[in-house]
Every structure is written in C-alpha cells, then in structure tokens.
C-alpha cells in the first residue's frame, strides 16, 4: 500500500516535472507553443479517434523490447507492449501496468509483483509471471546480444555476472513463483526501481513465438504477438507499422485511436513535407529551419527531455587537467546564444549537468533544489573566466596552446563549434582548431580519448539523476574525458547503496557538486523534444525520456 502511495506521488510529481520543464521552454522561446499537449476537447469514444499517422524515425532496427536500444523503437514498444509498470497516457508519469501490486521486502532488495488476473496477449493467451521470467533472462543472457543487457542487468541480483558470462543465466535474481507472482531480487537497494522497470526493455515477449521465429519474429504481423494496448496489424520495412487497439488488452476501453500508422521516413525534412501535405499528423523532431513557419500555424510544440549537451575535456592531458582552465573555458561560452540562436530555441540553457525534470525524494525538481552551478549572467561569467585563466597561469590567453575542438559532422554541431571557438577567442584570447569526424569515427575517437575537447551528449534512460551522473564514475565506460575524483565516486556509491531516497538524493547532490566544482565537464544545453503536430490532433503526450504517447490521440 505504501508503495502505491509512493507511486501515485511520483506520478503526480512527474507531471509537475514535465510541466516545469515546459515552463522553462516558454521563457526561452516566447513565440513557441509549449505544454504537454493540446488539451483534449470532448473525450472521444474508444477506438473512435480515427487513423493517427505519426513520424518518429526511419525504419527501426528492431521492435523487439529486449533488443531495442533506440528512442523511436521505444515509442513503438510502449504502444504495442506493457511492462509491470506503464507510462500514464496523459502525462507520461509512471504507474502500475501488468502488476496490480508490489510488495517490497524490508531491506528493499526483494520486490514481489502480483500480476493482474485479466492480462492477455494479443492472441488471447494469458500473460504470466513465467513470460516475465523468460523475458528478463533473455535481456541479460549474453547469447541474446541485447544492447541494454548491462545497463538494465546491473540492477538485478547476479545481473552483471551473467552478462559477463561468469554465472549461468538461470542464476539471475528473477523467478516466477506461480502464474501471477513474479519475484525480483535486486543486486542492491534501488529506491527508484519502478523508474527502471518501466523502461521498455523490461516488457515481456512470448517464448514460443521468439523461439519459433528467431530475432525476426516481429517483422511479420502474423507472428507479432504483444501484450500492450495495441497490436500490430501490418509491418512493412521502410514503409510503415500499423497498429490497432488490442481487444485482449484489459484497458482497451480507454484506447482512443482507431489505428495508428507509424510512418518510416528518411529524415525530418521529408517528414516536414509530409506534414505540410497532411500525410502525417504528428512528427518529431521538427526540422529547426521550419520552426518559425510551424509556430505561425500553431503546429510547433516543445516537451522537456532528460538530457544534456555538454563538452568533454580530456582531463588527462595538459592544460585540460587543470580545473581552472576547464572553468575558464566553460564560463567563457555564451550558452544563451547557443540555445536560442544556433539551436533556434530547440535547446535550453544548462546551468549544471543534471537537467530539469528529474524528481527528488520530495517530488521536487532535482535541479531547482540543487541550484545553478553556472550563472545565467554571461557578463559576470566572462570576468570569472578571465580571472580563472589568469590564475591558471595564462593571463589573457598568453602561452595557451591552440585548442583542438572535435565534433561529429553536422551543420548544427559545426555552427555550435564556431560560436564556442569565437567566444574562447574573444573572451580568453585562445585560438581553436575545429576538427569534425563522421559519427562512427567520432564515437571511436572519443571513446579512446583521442581528443582535447569534444562535443558530447547524454539522454537519460530513467528519471533519476544517477542516470546522468553515472557517466562520470572513475573508469566508467562512457566517461570519455576520464574524469576521476575519489570523492565523487564515494558520493555516487553512497547513493547507489542506499534505499532511502532522501539519503540518495543528498549523496547525488554532493556528487554533482564535486563534479561541477572540479569543472569536470562543460554542460551547455538541455535537450528538449520538438514536435510538429496538427492543431487538429488532440490528446497526445510525451515522456521526458523521448517517447511519444498516442494512446489517447484523436482528430
């Protein structure tokens, strides 16, 4: 019961967080229409919402929950499947889904889920705890090659050992006690486990279907069996995925669209053309160059996203091993110009690494509680930057080597790089060489630390600040700049080993403070999701993790 209240509270605050994120969007984007979605008019009848056509990407790599790693794939999955938890269709907050209740042991390590009695697959078979056991083991099993195996597995007892192949998959801490009871043993206390379990990789698949048809089972509507609000009607690679309400879904009475066509298009420019000619009702992202015209027609929407665009410094190379140098470079950048001019208000100014929209133990915004580490007063920042550089031994940029700034090839990143280089030249008197690499090459270069300063970005997987801060653990796989501070690690581990949200949040605030006072990276902007949506389309919404929800959409 306590758990339910917590879930409900979290749900409420998720909503607040979403709205808060959008509120900030409004300030930086006076003309832009903001909000979770247009408010629905008269509530339409189930299945009477018409055929909704949406664009979110080109043909997906997969729509298999365990094998997916993309945001567009996750959008399709949250329509076709459902996990123990689901995203509330009106605001994207987390609520119970296939589980009707959860019982958490006193030490916080064992979560026992009782499944609803009325959940069925689209072919009418009941959804059981055995399906969950199979699917979660499949996720972590090295033989599956699931991209999220480690990230998701490490929460579960023996998960990490299984992914490494040290322990057989049968010893993973998940077990179906009977048809309706699913027991999960965690590797450590995880107070925000519902935020993790709602992640689409944890949604179940059917063993008999997967085993009979292999990894391609989802490519054929005939073998596409799912347990979500919708079921697949047809799938055509490079064309579209059409889904219709799943009659076997317990809550189908609330599902509004008659059908949804997820149209696969090569890029957002084509999507824009399609949007203009009425061939899609909603699309994300909106092409930045068309924002003014979309705004004019009331078709432009911004929704918060939990992610940050930042710069990595190679902290093992001089002079970037000096926190004062990192401070100077970070403060010299005009973030407002980047967000508003270069990115045409499709980004928000960042004041720290953890963005807006993360909720803390009181349901408040983590960022608001933690305050700004980078002032919004650019003039003051410039002076502080010059002082820091002088203190580091390079007054007026004298004797400072030429910076090599690396980014992946893209017009937008290039424009950002040019603006940053100009700031460094004007404010600090430092020259910069811009180097761009094709995406695949860039990823590899950045990973092996072959850069001085590099563009970076991170979109969070779950609504918890640790999902951002985990990047900067010593030796972490995504810690491209090799930032390392034992104090940061100590605080981070403290947060990971506690089940008390208040203790955790305090530790995460401390960890962030250490990182930001070390100037371990230069956060520049927070991501926002931009949408083009027909003013006629009502009832849609989005999760700050990047998934669009069309369950209640209608025209």
């Amino acid at each position, binding site marked *: 019961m306590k758990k339910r209240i917590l879930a409900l509270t979290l749900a409420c605050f998720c909503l607040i967080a979403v709205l808060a994120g959008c509120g900030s969007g409004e300030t930086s984007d006076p003309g832009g229409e903001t909000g979770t979605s247009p408010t629905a008019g008269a509530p339409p009848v189930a299945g009477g919402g018409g055929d909704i056509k949406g664009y979110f990407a080109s043909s997906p*790599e997969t729509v298999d929950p365990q094998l997916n790693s993309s945001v567009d794939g996750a959008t399709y999955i949250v329509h076709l499947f459902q996990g123990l938890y689901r995203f509330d269709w009106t605001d994207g907050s987390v609520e119970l889904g296939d589980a009707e209740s959860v019982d958490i042991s006193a030490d916080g390590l064992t979560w026992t889920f009782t499944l609803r009695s009325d959940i069925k697959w689209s072919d009418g078979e009941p959804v059981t705890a055995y399906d969950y056991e199979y699917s979660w083991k499949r996720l972590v099993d090295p033989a599956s090659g699931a*991209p999220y195996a480690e990230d998701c597995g490490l929460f579960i007892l023996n998960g990490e050992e299984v*992914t490494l192949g040290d322990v057989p998959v049968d010893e993973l801490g998940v077990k179906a006690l009977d048809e309706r009871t699913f027991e999960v043993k965690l590797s450590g206390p995880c107070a925000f486990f519902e935020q993790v379990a709602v992640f689409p990789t944890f949604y179940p698949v059917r063993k008999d279907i997967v085993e009979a048809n292999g990894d*391609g089972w989802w490519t054929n509507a005939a073998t596409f069996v799912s347990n979500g609000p919708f079921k697949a009607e047809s799938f055509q690679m*490079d064309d579209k995925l059409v889904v219709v309400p799943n009659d076997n879904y317990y809550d189908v009475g609330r599902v509004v669209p008659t059908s949804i066509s997820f*149209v696969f298009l*090569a890029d957002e420019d084509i999507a824009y053309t399609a949007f203009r*000619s009425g061939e899609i009702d909603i699309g994300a992202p909106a092409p930045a160059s068309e924002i003014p015209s979309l705004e004019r027609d009331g078709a432009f929407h911004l929704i918060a996203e939990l992610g940050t665009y930042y710069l990595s410094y190679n902290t093992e190379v001089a002079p970037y091993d000096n926190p004062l140098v990192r401070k100077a470079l970070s403060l010299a950048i005009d973030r407002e110009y980047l967000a508003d001019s270069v990115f045409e208000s499709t980004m928000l100014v960042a004041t720290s690494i953890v963005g807006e929209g993360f909720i803390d133990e009181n349901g408040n915004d983590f960022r608001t509680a933690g305050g700004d580490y980078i002032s919004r007063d650019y003039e003051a920042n410039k002076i502080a930057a010059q002082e820091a550089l002088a203190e580091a031994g390079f007054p007026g940029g004298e004797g400072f080597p030429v910076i090599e700034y690396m980014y992946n090839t893209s017009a937008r990143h290039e424009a950002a790089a040019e603006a940053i280089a100009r700031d460094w030249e004007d404010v600090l008197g430092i020259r910069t060489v811009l180097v761009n690499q094709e995406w695949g090459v860039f990823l590899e270069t950045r990973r092996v630390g072959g850069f001085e300063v590099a563009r970076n970005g991170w979109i969070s997987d779950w609504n918890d600040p640790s999902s951002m801060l985990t990047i900067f653990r010593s030796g972490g796989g*995504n810690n491209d700049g090799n930032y390392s501070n034992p104090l940061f690690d100590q605080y981070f581990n403290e947060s990971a080993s506690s089940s008390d949200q208040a203790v955790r949040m305090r530790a995460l605030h401390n960890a962030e403070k250490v990182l930001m006072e070390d100037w371990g990276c230069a956060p520049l902007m927070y991501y926002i999701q931009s949408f083009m949506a027909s003013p006629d389309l009502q009832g849609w919404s989005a999760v700050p993790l990047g998934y669009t929800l069309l369950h209640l959409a209608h025209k």
Partner: protein
Amino acid sequence: MISFTIKRFFGAVLTLFIVCTLTFFLMNIVPGGPFLSEKTSQQTLDRMNEKYGLDLPIHEQYINYMNRLLHGDLGISYKRQGFTVNEIIAEKFPVSAKLGIIAVIWSIFSGVILGTAAAMNRNKLLDRAIMFISTIGISVPGFILGTLLIYLFAEMLGWVSATDALGSPKQYILPVITLSMQSMSYIARLIRSTILDVIDSDFIKTAKAKGVSRIRIIYKHIMRNALIPLVTYVGPMTAFIITGGFYVERIFNIPGLGDYFVRSVETRDYPLIMGLTIFLALLVIVVNFIVDILYRVVDPRIKLQ
C-alpha cells in the same frame, strides 16, 4: 563468341574477388564499428562483437566471410535485425531496378527524339530551345532538381504524395524525371552532334541524290551510325542509374537499394556493405557484357575478343 564469354566469365570472377577483398579490408580499416553508439559500454561491445564473430582476427573473419559467400550466403544485417542481406537485396533491388529501367528507357527515348529534332532543325528556334534545356539538364544536379520538383508538385500543388513512394503510377513521374534528366540531356546533345557529323558525309549526299526518302535516310543511314556512341554511353549510364540513384531515393523516400547503400556505410553494417558492393559490382559487370554484345549487333565490323 563462346571463347569471349568464357574469358569474360573468368575476368568477372577475378574482378569480384578483388572487389570483395578490397572492400572487406578497407571497411575494417575505417574506424568505428556497427555496435558502437553513444551509450554502449565496452562490455556490451565485446559481447556483441562476439555474437557476430567480430572478435576473431581479421584474416579469420575474412576466410569465414569468403567461405559463406561461396555458398551464396551474404550473412545477416546488423542494423535490420531479423533480415538477411540476401532478403534485403531481393526485396529492395526490384524497387530500384524498376525505377531505374523506366528512367533509362525514358532518357534514351526522349533523348534520341530531342536530339534528332534538334539536328534536323539546325540553328532554328527548336534547336536552340532543345539545346538550352539540355544544357540546364546537364548542369543542374539531381538533388536540386528533385527537391525543387517535390516542393512544387508535392508541397505547393499537392498533386503527388511526398511520402507514398511509388505507391501509384503517377508517383513515378517525379523520380523518373529527376533520375533521367542528366542522361536525357546528354543523349540529346550526343545524338545531335553525331547526326550533324554524319549528315554532311558523302554517303548521305549519295542517298539524297538517289532520291531516298528523308525518313529512310534518317532511320537507315543516320541513326545507325549515331547509335555507336550512344551504346557506349548507355552501358555505364544504365549501371549508374540503376545503382546510382542514392540521393534520388533519399529525396523521394523510395525504399530502394541506393538508400541502403548509404546507410549501411554510415552505420558500419558490414555484411550489408559487402553484400551491396558485391551485388552492384556484379551488375556493372553484367551490363558491360551486354554492351559488348550490343556493339557487335550495331556494328558487325567490331570483333569481340
């Protein structure tokens, strides 16, 4: 003829082998990999590489690949999970080929007619108009023409759909025009200049003096001679149009091979890069073979060796 075919066959096998080997090693030299992404941990990467045999030494990977290739198996796509490369080619090539063949036929047909009309009206208004259009056609790149056509006919006028690629016959019009504009213009100019070369030659004068009809002179004497440079051009052009519609497919959202080719390189989908390269090399070889045969049909003096 038989010895020519045999020679060509072994030449083709050798060419394919070289193409395979070069592509395989070049592809692996390029930094990055199919499973690298912003978020993959080293563990994940190792595990994925192991699943697909990419953890083996490069020469072993090469031997494994060639071994599978000899059995006609191009492997599975890393980025289109659940599909084999053979399936992707079988599904996507007909789309590219159909569009490409229509574009080839259209560029030859309209190019020859325009070129002949221009030559027959040398220095008159029609000639100048055709030459003006064909100059523009050669110099405007397809991606600009395509974007312009989409803007005009899909976005502004709404006559065709921007997304429903090739869904109905009229959806073919814009991509075919875009794809064939350059070659049509080139053929028109080629035909015009060849005809003008021939038209002043002695045998045409003789034919005219004998009272041979104008149509017969054009068809029997002039066109026959004008065809040789045309065949030379049409061979590579066909291979280029069928396989080279990369940007056109992207602009018109056509689910053909061209777009896959670009994407496979971007995403380091190794089996797909290999499969498509081999397939396209094979296509060029076959087209060139047909062109050689056609030379002999057009001009019996040419010997195939």
